[in-house]
């Protein structure tokens, strides 16, 4: 069976803590997603998402606080707008926009972490593996060169200079 | 206005009076109950096994019939309402059962089904199952009912009896608070009656136990009746043919067993609505009642 590779950006105030709660409650969900802890879902730059797809992610999941509950007042609204704008961009690149999901999950919603994670893994599994080679297409998308350790921002600056 | 109508077996056999009165009332309120051209028994009891699709097929098939006529279906019998509503919820919420049920329906070789070719599209729970009282409240509107009244029922003390099937289980029926329902009280207030709130209004009448264990069922029914009688009700209304059977017919047995037992008429709520709407008594048909409601109604100059 195809096991999708999923990158999750979880806000440390809510969804990350919700995933902790799912753990302390010993709830079970599929192990396809690796969670990166960010201070706020608003920290997630569309370029991080594009980078994930470029690096072979089959899906990207972002978890933030419910609207109105953001620890930083309105960070999650930024995320909401960015995700909404990024989805058509993904489609235009040939990436199904369902491969990107944003959900509001509070620290109390361990069950929701389980449901969203399970659902998303299924969605991505149904979509199948990402077969696009985005390396070329995204080369202008401010991604670093192949070699690890090349400073991304340097690459960005190069791109900027080119423009 | 036409609304698809599922009468169910009992309203075509024992409870013809209920069917007739309800159609007459609807007509008087500008609604035509359009009986499904093809329908079968709903199954009568919602299955408690959770792993079987077969047991809900009867209900689903009727809903699929209804889906060809409109987005709603109205029913009157509490059992039919219970089975249809719960089957519908299963179809709406359980993807696996939805698929299986549709496969069964497609394989259905029933010739009526073929005749109706009702299976051009999958049934996915698109029909809303309405009880007649919900239709009065939400489609017609109690305010319109109030405006259409011809006869005042003021001074008539009526106790609304809900029974079980209309209300429970709460989360599946989503009809009213099963512990303290009020929809029939609101309806009776619309009619101008004096509403008699009695604590046994949502207790069981004995139901099917009347076949297996008559003693228990009669005891249940008697508890319900005495509670209403004690609060000086003139009559009781209900919407369930089985409740009516237990509460009305079995008063004969109760009178034998209990000294000084006072009888009380039990009628369908649409029969009472018919009186208020000024519908001719013969279209309401009280001839089938064991305890004749006419003396009580005559006492209030209503018949």
């Amino acid at each position: 069976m195809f096991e999708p590779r999923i990158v999750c950006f979880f806000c440390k105030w809510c969804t990350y803590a919700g995933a902790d709660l799912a753990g302390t409650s010993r709830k079970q969900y599929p192990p396809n997603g690796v969670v990166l802890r960010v201070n706020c879902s608003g920290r997630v730059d569309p370029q991080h998402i594009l980078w994930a797809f470029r690096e072979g992610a089959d899906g990207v999941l972002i978890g933030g606080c419910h609207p109105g509950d953001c620890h930083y007042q309105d960070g999650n609204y930024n995320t909401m707008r960015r995700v909404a704008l990024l989805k058509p961009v993904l489609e235009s690149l040939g990436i199904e926009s369902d491969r990107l999901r944003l959900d509001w999950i509070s620290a109390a919603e361990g069950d929701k972490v389980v449901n969203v994670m399970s659902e998303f893994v299924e969605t991505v599994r149904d979509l199948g593996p990402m077969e696009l080679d985005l390396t070329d297409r995204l080369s202008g998308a401010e991604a670093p060169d192949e070699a690890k350790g090349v400073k991304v921002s340097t690459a960005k600056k190069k791109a900027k200079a080119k423009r | 206005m036409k609304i698809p109508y599922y009468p169910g077996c009992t309203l075509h056999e024992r409870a013809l009076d209920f069917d007739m009165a309800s159609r007459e009332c609807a007509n008087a309120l500008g609604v035509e109950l359009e009986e499904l051209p093809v329908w079968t028994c709903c199954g009568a009891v919602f299955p408690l096994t959770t792993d079987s699709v077969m047991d809900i097929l009867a209900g689903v098939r009727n809903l699929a019939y209804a889906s060809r006529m409109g987005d709603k279906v109205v029913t009157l019998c509490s059992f039919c309402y219970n089975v249809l509503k719960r089957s519908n919820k299963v179809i709406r919420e359980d993807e696996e059962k939805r698929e299986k049920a549709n496969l069964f329906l497609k394989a259905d070789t029933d010739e009526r089904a073929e005749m109706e070719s009702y299976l051009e599209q999958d049934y996915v729970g698109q029909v809303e199952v309405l009880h007649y009282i919900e239709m009065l409240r939400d489609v017609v509107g109690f305010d319109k009912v109030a405006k259409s009244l011809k006869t005042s029922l003021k001074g008539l003390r009526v106790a609304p009896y809900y029974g079980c099937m209309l209300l429970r289980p709460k989360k599946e029926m989503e009809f009213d608070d099963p512990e303290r329902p009020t929809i029939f009280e609101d309806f009776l207030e619309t009619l101008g009656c004096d509403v008699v709130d009695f604590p046994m209004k949502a207790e069981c009448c004995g139901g099917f136990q009347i076949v297996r264990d008559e003693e228990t069922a009669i005891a249940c029914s008697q508890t319900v009746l005495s509670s209403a009688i004690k609060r000086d009700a003139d009559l009781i209304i209900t919407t369930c043919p089985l409740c009516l059977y237990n509460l009305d017919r079995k008063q004969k047995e109760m009178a034998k067993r209990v000294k000084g037992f006072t009888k009380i008429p039990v009628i369908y709520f649409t029969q009472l609505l018919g009186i208020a709407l000024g519908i001719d008594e013969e279209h309401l048909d009280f001839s089938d009642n064991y305890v004749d409601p006419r003396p009580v109604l005559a006492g209030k100059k209503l018949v």
Partner: protein
Amino acid sequence: MEHRIGVFVCHCGTNIAGVVDVKRVAEELAKYPGVAYSTDYLYMCSDPGQNLVKDAIKEHGLTGVVVSACSPTLHEATFRRAGAAADLNQYRVEMANIREHCSWVHRGDKEMATEKAIKIIKTMIEKVKQNEALEPISVPMTHRAMVVGAGIAGIQAALDIANAGHDVVLVEKEPSVGGHMAQLSETFPTLDCSQCILTPKMVEVSQHPRIKLLTYCEIDDVSGYVGNFKVRIKKKAAYVNRDVCNGCGLCIEKCPAKTASEFDEGLSERKAIYTPFAQAVPNQPVLDRDHCIYFESGKCGVCQKVCPVDAIDYEQKDEFLDEEVGAIIVATGFDLYPIVNIGEYGGGDIKDVVTSLQFERLLSASGPTGGVVRRPSDGEIPKEVVFLTCVGSRDPEGHMPYCSKVCCMYLTKHAMLYKHNEHDGQAYVFYMDVRTPGKDYEEFYQRAAEEDDVLYIRGKVSKLFEEDGKVMVWGVDTLTGQKVEIAADMVVLGLAMVPSATATELAKMLKIQMNQWGFYSEAHPKLRPVESLAPGFYLAGAAQGPKDIPEVVAQASAAASKVCALFAEKEYHREPIVAWIDEDECAGCRICISVCPYDAIEFDDEKEVARVQEAICEGCGARIAACPSATAQQRNLTDDQLYMMVSAALED
């Protein structure tokens, strides 16, 4: 710089090792670029575990450490301290969460869980490789606390902090301090009178030189961060000039308008101008305009006429006060689960079915019946009283699923006090389980059952209804399997505790977490029970979960001690995970300024670049993502780091 990262994989007993192949994880990671040392150990958080980290740092010259164990909320601080003790900058120590996010949630697939653990650890290795050595940012701190809610929890917390030498602002939305405890009659298990032990404390908070008491006030807005909160308080119009009023009570005496008393739970009436109860603190009345004849019709004005000091001011408006504090304790208490939701027990329509707080008032010597239990319907003394536990609680189907914790005990107390009043009366308690986990609690229950002949029946009551002036109780005794029917004179409902009605709104304003029932969430269920996850907010009392008075007082004192510990430092040390802007690269577009919710970015007009004020920046990262040239970065969570982490998460 050459990376020399140390990886430490914790077994956590079998919590991790039972699912994740820790040996394999440690071996695989030893091969990962930049890893100089990799090992596994039974309990990393133990002393030997921490020493393992310290020794390895020295022995292998580690430049960074990844402890792969539980959630960072648990032990990040522990291992940062361990790192610092071995002269490794604390911000070069990170945790990889392979317990909550891996072993506990993927028990079914050990192979995949092991693979995932490796990936998680790799992401953190990549992060730590680029972590800068940072120092906490010191910011000035206001050594003054605010306590929201002046029930017993708020009172205790305020007194403890004030007695430790810090100023406290105590805010209460009601006209008097005291909360629900002031309503109670006697308290279990000692049966000392609630008011007798509470009122001295009420007086103390009102007279303490370090406590600023603000009653009839609500929190309107909170801004700032730990150490430096700015709180806007709404002082509700009381139509009484509180600077002038001497509390003579003449206005109350003469007021002709009456309404149901909240303090007596509707069992008696109060005037439109009122103090909630006789011992109210402060003893100044407030005017309830919703029930005032003057506000309704423009006539009356009696209170104004009789006031000897001209304190009545019908023109008074809500006022707003601004207070600066360094820490906030939230102690907003509880309400009872609404009786109207309990249809099977009459939903509040049966007069002689009362709530537990109403029964407290009936038992109280200062209550509407002078301490003699009388039925609300006819004032008769009831001879058969039925007490129901778990009303609205432990009922996941219909109501609240949690145990309300105190009902078994207070209903036992109710039954006992009733029996002390009415020796020939009969008290029944229907119960699911009698829960008495507290000092002297079980003995108290035994006493009620054995000495006071309270009859305990194990079973639920399905229905209450009125019949012939009695309350009919239909229940079941599950020990004998018998149906139980009681014609009671009175029934008392042990309703569940729920968070007070204003708790949710306040939580949203303070940005503190709640659980799904609206109780405030503590930072850790065991180890940080009185702190909120949001820094600077502390929790006390039933607002955090149902609890009894001793527990509330203990929690309030604990919260106060946490505040005092915070105040022990002159300055507050904040996490340096803030934003920074490379001035050479900044194009001066000002987009970041428009995104920042804290106004933490100033613009240097001369150089035409944006600059972060580190003392204000909260480190959300929202505007870093907004920066079009990627010159704005977050310390130790830069774009570069995130890219590398993403890549590591996806590596096979």
